[in-house]
């Protein structure tokens, strides 16, 4: 039993962190997702990692770092679809009862995968000409199109594949959110040390210090849950896969949201500006909590 990052995993984490700091600084992240982002991530192996022999635990470490840096794009879908659907792949769960669908990043996609009860379909972006681009999307880094009726596509996988993708997608989304939660702790702590009021750093006020401590704990517990779920996915005899993944999605989703809000509070008026990055973390956490199952839905599943 060795439930801590191996030396290789520490090197992997540091490598991705360095890549993000060098290639995906906030100025680039704010320009949004495009094919050059995809190409660089593809070259690093983010999408092919499991085909290249990496375990879920490794991929989850990569996604934690991508989330920490808030690298935008349909990264999870492109990873899941690798080897089955080529290129830049986005995805969506088919809405029940004919409700409209909100589709992310359509303009950059080679293919859209759609999950439903019966399996996995692929829809060509050209079939989505009827969709309307939202001119005021919640998350500025997640462009969205709305379509009243999502057309049927070509079936490429059965219900078993859809289940596998939902599980992998929930895990990687949780990993990304755990990274976001950690980034919020780091950024808010740095601001708490730098910003002075009443002649001292605001982080020395206990109300702020305790808020930051709670945020740090939430991020760490979420990260641990994500690592554990990835290990169980790699070695299913060591636990209950669905339970572990749902637990991770609950804790990481709650942590990302709570910590983005906590960070906003610590930043004071700056937190309410467009210029400071806090709102980007907050908005993305809402987006991701509505992707691959909300924390509430996963909590219900756990209690069943």
């Amino acid at each position, binding site marked *: *039993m*060795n*439930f*801590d*990052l*191996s030396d290789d*995993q520490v090197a992997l984490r540091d490598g991705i962190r360095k890549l993000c700091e060098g290639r995906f600084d906030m100025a680039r992240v704010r320009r949004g997702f495009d094919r050059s982002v995809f190409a660089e991530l593809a070259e690093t192996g983010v999408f092919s990692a499991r085909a290249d022999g990496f375990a879920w*635990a490794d991929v989850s470490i990569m996604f934690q770092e991508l989330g920490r840096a808030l690298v935008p794009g349909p990264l999870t879908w492109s990873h899941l679809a690798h080897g089955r659907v080529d290129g830049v792949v986005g995805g969506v769960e088919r809405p029940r009862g004919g409700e409209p669908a909100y589709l992310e990043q359509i303009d950059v996609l080679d293919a859209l995968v759609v999950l439903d009860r019966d399996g996995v379909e692929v829809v060509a972006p050209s079939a989505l000409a009827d969709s309307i681009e939202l001119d005021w999307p919640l998350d500025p880094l997640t462009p969205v199109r709305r379509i009243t009726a999502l057309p049927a596509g070509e079936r490429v996988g059965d219900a078993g594949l859809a289940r596998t993708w939902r599980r992998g997608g929930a895990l990687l989304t949780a990993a990304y959110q755990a990274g976001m939660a950690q980034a919020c*702790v780091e950024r808010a*702590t740095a601001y*708490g*040390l730098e910003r002075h009021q009443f002649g*001292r*750093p605001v*982080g*020395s006020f*206990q109300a702020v*210090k*305790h808020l*930051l*401590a*709670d945020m*740090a*704990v939430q991020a*760490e*517990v*979420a990260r*641990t*849950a994500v*690592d*554990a779920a990835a*290990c*169980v996915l*790699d*070695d299913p*005899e*060591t*636990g209950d896969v669905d*339970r*572990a993944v*749902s*637990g*991770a999605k*609950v*804790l990481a989703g*709650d942590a990302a949201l709570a910590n983005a809000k906590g960070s906003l509070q610590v930043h004071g008026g700056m937190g309410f500006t467009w210029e400071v990055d806090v709102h980007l973390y907050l908005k993305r956490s809402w987006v991701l909590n509505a992707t691959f199952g909300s*924390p*509430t839905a*996963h*909590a*219900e*599943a*756990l*209690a*069943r």
Partner: protein
Amino acid sequence: MDLRLSESDEAFRAELRDWLARTLPELPTEPARDDWPARVRYDTDWQRRLFDAGYAGMSWPKEYGGRDAPPSEQLVFLEETTRAKAPYVGVNFVGTLHAGPTLIAEGSDPQRAQHLPRILRGDEVWCQCFSEPGAGSDLAGLRTRAVRDGNDYVVTGQKIWCSFGHVGEYGELLVRTDPDAPKHRGISWLILEMDRPGIEVRPIETLLGSSEFCEVFLDEVRVPVENRVGAENDGWRVTNVTLSFERGTAFVSEMVDARQLAEELRPLTAEPADRRELGRVLAALDALWALTVRNVTQASRGVVGPGALMFKLAYSEARDRLGELSMRLLGRGAFDVHDERVEERLRTLSIPIAAGTSQIQRNIIGERLLGLPREKSWE
């Protein structure tokens, strides 16, 4: 990174299960909670059985009679004994988990020889006399005075919240030996024989209506200088050395129980809101289990990761949510404290207070982990 136990851990589990299956049916029935003489007999008898079977002092070094088990085995030991509903550590708590490790780390050879084998065999019961009416969170502000007189210290003062104080034969006693030094530097650690003249012990009734802890009044109690553990005025460091000894396993039994209780609540959750809350509590408890495994992994390599400082705060909160959920689900059934789940709700109210309150935990996380400015008043 993995969660898999080794073959030798699994072999240990099988052997332990086997022993538990043979041993537990032989135990006498558990005594009533206020029958303290019987509780002492019951708990120390259990400790003796553990000792005879080679399971006492799982984390203690071999040269002091321990098993020096790898952390994964300690985890398996606590998990299996709790699941099998074996007796808790009970009155052996302070001796086996705190005083013993302190003597191992800081005691003199005669102190070790006198106490360690007896603690392991269940022949000695210890209690902890640290807190005072004026010194709780600010423990280093303690005022119980020890004045040197020949080969004795003469100790006068008052201690409070001493768990098992009325049955302990020995106490871990923190006293002030230099009133003029800065507060952390004038403290000494003494072994107190609880039957010395001048000691009065008065049980305090807890909100459960039981008497688990006591006030201890010390009136010119003579304690031999040879009872001092570590150097004079170095008691604060001695106290803190021990804390690293548990290797992150302090709450394992607690957590096994909590997870079992959460599972038992499953069929009671008819309302969606309750189901969601239960799901969140289950997720938190699962993650805290994984965090324990991580802390234990790191501790075995001598690393103190962030999780070690965070565990207690996170567990306090998860346990509180579980307690509230069980009360809500029991409804008017909760009017009867004989329901174990109600008793548990009451008992676990102490978790955010004992051994460093949640506010103190947040201070520690904020200052030591996040590097936020320290409060001036700490020094």
